[in-house]
């Protein structure tokens, strides 16, 4: 499967990639974007199977990215990996069509739990 990682931090994209491997999800193809706008372009170009996105990003936030995807009828599984995991934000994410929200700081187990239903 192909996984799109959208985060404005190169360091965090690297950490998410490493945590995916630690969670046992190695062998998947990873593509990257540094904000929501690049993410939308990557969806068109790369056709990922799953999207992991930060929430706070310059140019286009992760929430706007998700809303744009769903408004265009695309149902690609989408999860947030974000430093903010309040109940309010989880509700906003779910209402916008996110499958899950992984709060930083995270563990490989949190990735397993969130992604197992999607990646198998």
């Amino acid at each position, binding site marked *: 499967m192909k996984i799109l990682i959208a985060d404005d*931090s*190169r*360091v965090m994209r690297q950490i998410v990639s*490493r945590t995916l491997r630690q969670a046992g999800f190695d062998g998947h193809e990873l593509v990257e974007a540094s904000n929501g706008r690049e993410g939308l372009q990557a969806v068109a170009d790369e056709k990922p199977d799953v999207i992991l996105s930060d929430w706070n990003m310059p140019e286009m936030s992760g929430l706007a990215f998700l809303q744009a995807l769903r408004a265009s009828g695309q149902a690609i599984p989408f999860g947030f990996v974000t*430093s903010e995991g*309040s109940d*309010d934000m989880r509700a906003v994410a779910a209402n916008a069509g996110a499958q899950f929200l992984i709060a930083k*700081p*995270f563990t490989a187990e949190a990735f397993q739990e969130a992604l197992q239903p999607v990646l198998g």
Partner: protein
Amino acid sequence: MSVDAGLEPDVITAAKVDALAADVWDSLGLGDAGPVPGAAEDDRLVTASVSVAGRWTGHVTVSCGTDTGRALAAAMLGLDGSNIEDADMADAIGELANMVGGSLKGLLPPPSTLSLPHVITGPGATHHFPHARPVCRSRITAVHGPVTITVWHSTAERIHR
């Protein structure tokens, strides 16, 4: 050194910031972080800040010497520490501020928003917040060196009354 001196003594304490930071360091594989007595600051610092705006408004800064900053960036990127560029160091320390700030935001009454990180580097590089005062300072260390985390509470509301 940890100093409690806050407007929010029950919500934001140095001990809580120590614990939040230890969780962040642990999750990133940066070792067991714990409080450390005050030590001489490096001349050349990298300092990242994020701001929280809401019922509680303030800032969180994460600051360390650039040698520590490069070592942290190398560990976070899984690279050899000898060739870390300034941009990656700034990215790494900015992400630490983002994670500590996001965790702190979780302790505060909603709703509130968290800004993107702002990072400065240079001799004595320190953010100045004219309408805020430090309420909590936590100095922790792990294998890569000491890091100072400061929580600032905005006093702007009182100024505008």
